[in-house]
């Protein structure tokens, strides 16, 4: 709790968005979600359990994802998370906001920086 600085606050928002984005492809359990984010970010982002599960709970409380117990591909009992219609809308809103933010920051920082760090 105490370690959460303003940086972390911003990251928390983006983690939520990225989780939603991951679930767009289909239902997934915690481990898969973490793996997908790591892989797609070319192992730049590492998702810790410590932030993943609080984020998932938060999203579930807000009604953006729903969860159901199932079995994983490796036959383990896991909780699958699914994007709800409300979550889908939220994702669109967040992504939009994010793009505008990045563009704005890019404009301030100069064109070149944006191309380097921008979204694919």
């Amino acid at each position, binding site marked *: 709790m105490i370690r959460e600085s303003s940086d972390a606050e911003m990251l928390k928002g983006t983690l939520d968005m990225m989780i939603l984005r991951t679930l767009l492809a289909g239902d997934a359990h915690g*481990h898969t979600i973490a793996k997908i984010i790591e892989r797609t970010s070319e192992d730049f982002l590492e998702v810790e359990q410590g932030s993943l599960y609080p984020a998932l709970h938060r999203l579930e409380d807000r009604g953006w994802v729903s969860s159901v117990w199932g079995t994983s591909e490796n036959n383990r009992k896991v909780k699958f998370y699914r994007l709800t219609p409300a979550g889908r809308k939220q994702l669109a809103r967040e992504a939009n906001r994010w793009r505008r933010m990045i563009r704005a920051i890019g404009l301030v920082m100069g064109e070149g920086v944006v191309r380097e760090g921008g979204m694919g």
Partner: protein
Amino acid sequence: MSWSRFFRRKNEDVDLREEMQSFLAEEIAENVARGLAPEEAERRARIKLGNPQRLRETLWQQNTFSLFEKLGRDLKYALRTLVRTPGFSLIAVAVMALCISAATSLFTIVHSVLMKPLPFRDADRLVVIHEHFRGAWANTPDFNYNPVAPADFFDWRAKTHGFEDMAIMRYAGYNLTGERGELPEAVSAAAGSWNMFQLLGVQPALGRAFIEPEDQHGSTVVLLTWSVFQRRFAGDAKIVGRPIHLDGRPFTVVGVLPSWFKYPDARIQLWVPYKADAEPKFLQRHDSHLNLVVARVRPGVSLASAIAQVSTLQYQLHLQYPHVAEDALARSLTEDLAGNVTKPLHIMLSAVGCMLLIGCLNVANLLVARGAARQKEVAIRSALGAQRATLIREQLMESVLICGAGGLSGILLSVFATRWLAHAWKGLPTAQSIHMDGAVIAFACALMCAAALAAGLLPALSATGKGVMNPLQTSARTGASSISRTGMRKSLLTVEIGITVVLLIAAGLLLKSFLRLRSANVGCVTENTLTLKYSLPKNKYDAPEKVNAFNEALLQRVRSMPGIRAAALGNILPAAGYWGDDVFTVKEHPPLNPDEDRPDALTRWADPGYFGALGIPFLSGRSFTRDERVARSYKVIVSHRLVQQYFPAGDNPILKHLRVPTHAHDGAPNDIDYEIVGVVDDTVYQVGKEPKAVMYFPLFEGVTSNNIQMLAVRTTSDPLQFSLLVQRQIAALDPELPVSDVLTMDQVIGESLGNQKLSATLVLAFAILSLLLASVGIYGVLSYLMAQRTTELGIRIALGARREQVLKLMLLDGLRPVIRGLLLGLVIGAIATRVFTSTLSILYGTKPLDPAVFGAVVLTLLLVAVLACLTPAWRASRLDPIQAIRVE
């Protein structure tokens, strides 16, 4: 976070652990797949996952309302503290329960009687209109609002426009006899104009209300109230349309009123149309004040202008007819019903308020003492950075718990207390049912919270205030910091004692007033006297001779019974109520004082043996004779007060004449000169009221209507043993005649004092309880003081202080706040009782600053205080100095 997660935190945690478990397993499997050795795979997975315990804690917190969590913790802590001292807790809870239940019960009654609108359509536009005389005597509290004369009402209704409609009613009584030999019964009834129920907005539960053509002389329709419908007719709906017998005449039941309808009171069993049994002559009378007029203000018209119109008309009537009131006054239905109970209700409510305050102060005082024991803990915690709010919240929790538990049990208790009080309190309006509802519960809860705050905040604030760190700076328990705390306790105690003294004074005054009332001289014999009431039905006893024959036969039979010393028969016995009065003029001389109100006296009928049997002495003249009856009976006996008031001093009233223009009772001859044959001593019409001038007319004059008779029988032994024997004599003469109100004279008087007794007893009970609480407070404070000064006292004794010196020191220390509180209480009490008595005029024969009462209060309080101080002071003087000094 969400509520569902909050309540399912445990399950959520189990789920989470399972999820983490599989996460770990997946990670390990992946690592193994990448070619790592199993141990290494697990190690790396665990490193990556971090501390699972921390995650669980984070999520647990995320799923928790932190305020709730903290409150819960405080609650648990406070509960444990309270359970550790069960004696203290039980006493405190019991005190709060008593106080809150008393307050809630009284509030229930006040709410039902004074605040809740009556269950009628737009009840806020309904008023009761009264006549009002301008004379001085009429402006005493009992006579401000006069009942209305029928002719005035008919004029008002026809000629004023401020009211949508007006309806009139008067009380009546019938003998209800059964068709199949059921027992006869005397029932209270009301005669109401046809529009009464329409005006109130009441729909009969069965059948219909009266219609206009039914409201005329000789009409024989009747509306039953729910209670008589259930009780007498077994709730059989077929009774509607069938006849029932009232005074032997068949009346057709047209409807049954709903069960909740109890206006104007619950005694009324049935309603007949207003004019059904009224002589046409009666309807034209402007001076027969026995009606209640209900009116509905027209929408858009103010009550003031509507009543002003009626008042103007009334003044014209006053100019036109003699003896008619000058004005009309209106008040709300609720106010009208509450009338006499408002005063005692206010007094008791104040008493209960005081008691509640004392209860809070007591709990506060006990909590301050407890806070003292935790001084160091609080100091250390605030040194470590605890916020003041947190500390206060924690300390408040105890008083919240005490008041919560006390309040809940108090509400439960008050369910019974209210029922008992409503039952014991005679004359409480019954039109609104008295019961607890949402508003009352809300009040009780608010009271509970207020009490918790009042009792808890003061100690909590003082314990966490500026000097909170001081205990850390002194090594001794008896440090300087406790001085302010002791001061706090002493001031709390002073206030507590002050309020107790006020309550004691109020209780003492009420009690003395009640005792004075009880021993007040009624003016006649009261011991070993049985009274009963019967009413001769008009259709059967339609001639004066028949009435006289029955009455004489009864008197003869009763007087010849063994064990009966004498019997008196009249329409109203002394102390049985006001009933009726009539105006008169003295024929032989003009009014003594032309400006004074016209002569007016209570009207009574008496048989020749009445005065002898009741022991009312003759001051001059004689009683009636047996042949002063019917046409030869124009004689009157007057009371001493009448002579005093309306005859010049030294004038012999015997053989003078009183001219009575109109008798209040139908069938009595009007405009006749009555010759005064005797003067008797005064009797009171109601215990506690000043005697009023009385005119006694011969019973055998033969009044045929409104034939209520009261028989008083003086017996040689316990009068109640004779009740059945006397009733049997009546049944032998007329088996259909019901008898009611079989009571001894002492019971009649006791009955009329019931309410004074109730309020005196209740306030006394509150006062004694407060005294008890205050003495506990004194004892507590002094014990605490002693504990604080143990070392000091030990040193004193070691240095040679004598035991009695220590005793005196401690006693004086304990008594100082008592004296201060006593003085405070005496001053407040003197002001409060003066205000109370001047606005409420509730005391009888007792001055508000009654020295006996004040003296008794001072003595009682001092005695109790000394007793409460003695134990701790004695203990202090017996201290073993070595032990005492070693305590540190």
